[in-house]
């Protein structure tokens, strides 16, 4: 039975731990980081702090049908960088991408060795699905990884939500949080801390929100709410490229993955008139191989132009192909197969409708996240980042996040070994954080009245959707709307003191909305700053519809001043390492 909410701060139990390496988030990247840390230094205590349960947490909860980046025979790290660079509209951290790519294959091959079935072709090579994609049967891949984490002797704290870093000055010496099951306040002191909490979903209103059961019918894991970003923002870490949002073309009414069909089975995207959209309208961008932002934007443009709805055309598929296609879905999003059944749809007769998803901040797909160095160190000493939470390296996907986990662990171990002292815990900060964490619970007991997290979540999501380029606005935005969004975000942030929580689950939801507000605020600042349209579909400024290389061929970074709360936005230069055309693979 879950513990009851405390009525008074004094009633809150405390758990104090000291560990060598603390990893926040036991998803794919976090698990790889933990394993790598243990592998490097088996003597170290490695602790994972996980909001859910490690076996099914993060993006891989329901599985995965493909690894989208694997360097096959005849391909090179350089080629991968070129391809990824073109996909990202020419802007990425090449140094980070190279180091990630060097470890990519190791991570994937290990996963296979541990039990992940990867399809093979007749030569015994991994079965290719696209140029960089390989097909896997990954419905249990997270379980397999979690088993390995335990086998390596890592300590796993399930159902503990991180709320803020433990700081000594600007140095991170662990994290604080609370147990969703035991209700206790956790103060975990660590030599080095790795953040791997994933990206942020739920900033925008999903179009499937019909008020009742389908609110979370979104593509990205809805339980990833950007806590890692928010903790960094609050601690004054430098963030990059939030404006490069991840919006994706997905199956309509059910945000199912689409690469499975369009890449795996060469199904072209068509509009209501039956025209092959990418081949006919975006040939200059690469046609069917256009960057993903183009593919996301295309159906929205068709709808705006009165040529919606759009589809991926599956009518050429054989029954055998449909069967393997469905197995792919059962490996990644089994409920999509249920969706087709619930529509009574035979996809060899009827194409699958597609549409844009709600926007997410996901560093594994785009470049949003912490500004890091090649060792995956953030700008806060002692803090390393990997996976979706780390910025600068788009198109990491599953394999890249795993590889980056290993890099972060190496960086963290190296940092730990160089450490002279492990810092001091400032008890006044701990007390303040404890009061902040339990405030919604205590307000519920004292006042019995206030705002429940869901109300605030829906307010935020509609605000962002309408004023910061959500799917209902076809991702479009302008300065005036963004400023409106900022104004109301400020009010919402002020209103968080009225949040109430009736149980520990709702307390978790309260912090999820608080974290989302911090992420949303930075996001809007980034969107405002980039006065151009670099990635239509991901970032469409209708008041600046063109790309402006003179001002914006660079990274847009930001840092929130922890004292004043002011957000400073600035640029960092782009550095090309791998020669070639940045816009072509």
């Amino acid at each position, binding site marked *: *039975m*879950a513990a009851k909410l405390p009525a008074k701060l004094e009633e809150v139990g405390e758990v104090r731990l000291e560990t060598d390496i603390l990893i926040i988030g036991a998803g794919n990247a976090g698990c790889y980081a933990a394993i790598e840390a243990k592998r490097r230094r088996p003597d170290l205590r490695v602790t994972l702090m996980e*909001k*859910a*349960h490690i*076996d*099914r*947490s*993060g993006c891989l*909860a*329901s599985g995965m049908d493909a690894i989208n980046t694997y360097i096959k025979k005849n391909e090179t790290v350089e080629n991968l960088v070129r391809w990824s660079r073109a996909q990202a509209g020419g802007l990425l951290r090449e140094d980070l991408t190279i180091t990630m790519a060097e470890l990519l294959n190791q991570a994937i091959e290990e996963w*296979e060795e541990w*039990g*992940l*079935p990867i399809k093979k072709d007749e030569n015994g090579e991994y079965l290719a699905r696209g140029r960089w994609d390989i097909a896997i*049967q*990954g*419905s*249990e891949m997270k379980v*397999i990884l979690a088993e390995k984490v335990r086998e390596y002797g890592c300590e796993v704290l*399930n*159902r503990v939500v991180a709320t803020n870093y433990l700081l000594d000055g600007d140095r991170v010496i662990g994290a604080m949080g609370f147990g*969703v*099951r035991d209700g206790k306040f956790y103060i975990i002191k660590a030599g080095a801390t790795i953040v791997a909490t994933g990206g942020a979903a739920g900033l925008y209103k999903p179009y*499937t929100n*019909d008020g*009742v*059961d*389908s*609110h*979370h*019918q*979104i593509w990205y*894991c*809805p*339980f990833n709410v950007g806590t890692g970003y928010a903790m960094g923002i609050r601690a004054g870490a430098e963030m990059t490229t939030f404006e490069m949002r991840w919006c994706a073309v997905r199956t309509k*009414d*059910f945000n199912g993955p689409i690469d499975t069909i369009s890449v795996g089975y060469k199904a072209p995207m068509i509009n209501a008139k039956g025209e092959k959209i990418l081949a006919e309208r975006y040939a200059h961008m690469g046609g069917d191989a256009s960057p993903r932002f183009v593919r996301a934007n295309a159906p929205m443009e068709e709808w705006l132009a009165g040529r919606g709805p759009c589809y991926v055309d599956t009518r050429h598929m054989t029954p055998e192909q449909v*069967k393997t296609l*469905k*197995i792919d879905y*059962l*490996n990644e*999003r*089994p*409920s999509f*197969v*249920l*969706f*087709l*059944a*619930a*529509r*009574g749809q035979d996809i060899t007769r009827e194409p699958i409708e597609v549409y844009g998803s709600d926007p997410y901040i996901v560093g594994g797909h785009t470049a949003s996240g912490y500004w890091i160095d090649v060792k995956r160190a953030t700008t806060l000493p002692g803090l390393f980042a990997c996976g979706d939470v780390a910025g600068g390296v788009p198109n990491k996907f599953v394999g890249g996040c795993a590889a980056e986990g290993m890099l972060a662990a190496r960086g963290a171990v190296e940092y730990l070994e160089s450490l002279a002292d492990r810092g001091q815990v400032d008890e006044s900060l701990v007390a303040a954080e404890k009061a902040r964490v339990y405030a919604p619970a205590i307000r519920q007991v004292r006042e019995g009245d206030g705002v429940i997290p869901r109300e605030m979540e829906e307010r935020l999501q509609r605000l962002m959707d309408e004023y910061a380029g959500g799917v209902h606005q076809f991702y479009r935005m302008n300065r005036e709307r963004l400023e409106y969004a900022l104004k109301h975000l400020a009010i919402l942030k002020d209103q968080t003191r009225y949040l109430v929580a009736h149980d520990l*689950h709702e307390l*978790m939801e309260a912090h999820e909305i608080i974290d989302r507000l911090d992420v949303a605020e930075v996001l809007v600042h980034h969107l405002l700053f980039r006065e151009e349209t670099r990635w239509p579909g991901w970032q469409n400024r209708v008041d600046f519809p063109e790309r402006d290389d003179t001002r914006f061929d660079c990274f847009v970074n930001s840092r929130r001043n922890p004292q004043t709360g002011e957000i400073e936005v600035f640029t960092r230069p782009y550095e090309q390492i791998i020669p070639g055309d940045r816009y072509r693979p």
Partner: protein
Amino acid sequence: MPPKVNLQKCDGCRAESEALCVQICPGDLMALDENNGKAYCRSARDCWDCMSCVKACPNGAIETRLPYQLGYYPAKLIPLVGSNKISWTVVDIHGKVERFTFKNRND
């Protein structure tokens, strides 16, 4: 309207400290009803339909249903979990049955 719990089959994992669906749900959405010791989903709206609970339930007591707003009644998707393979049976709204069996672990 995601996890539908069959109250006849659910035994609350005998009210062990945590029933398996409660333990596994990535969204912390499954809970045990204090009155009857059976599992329920505390907020269907927040379910991602990831089906982790369905696969984890040792009694086969949970079924995922698609929210009606998105798909029609009464389509079914039911897994049967083996040692290293899984099979899914899909029944669409016209009663058409399809089965898919595949390996999901190497070991």
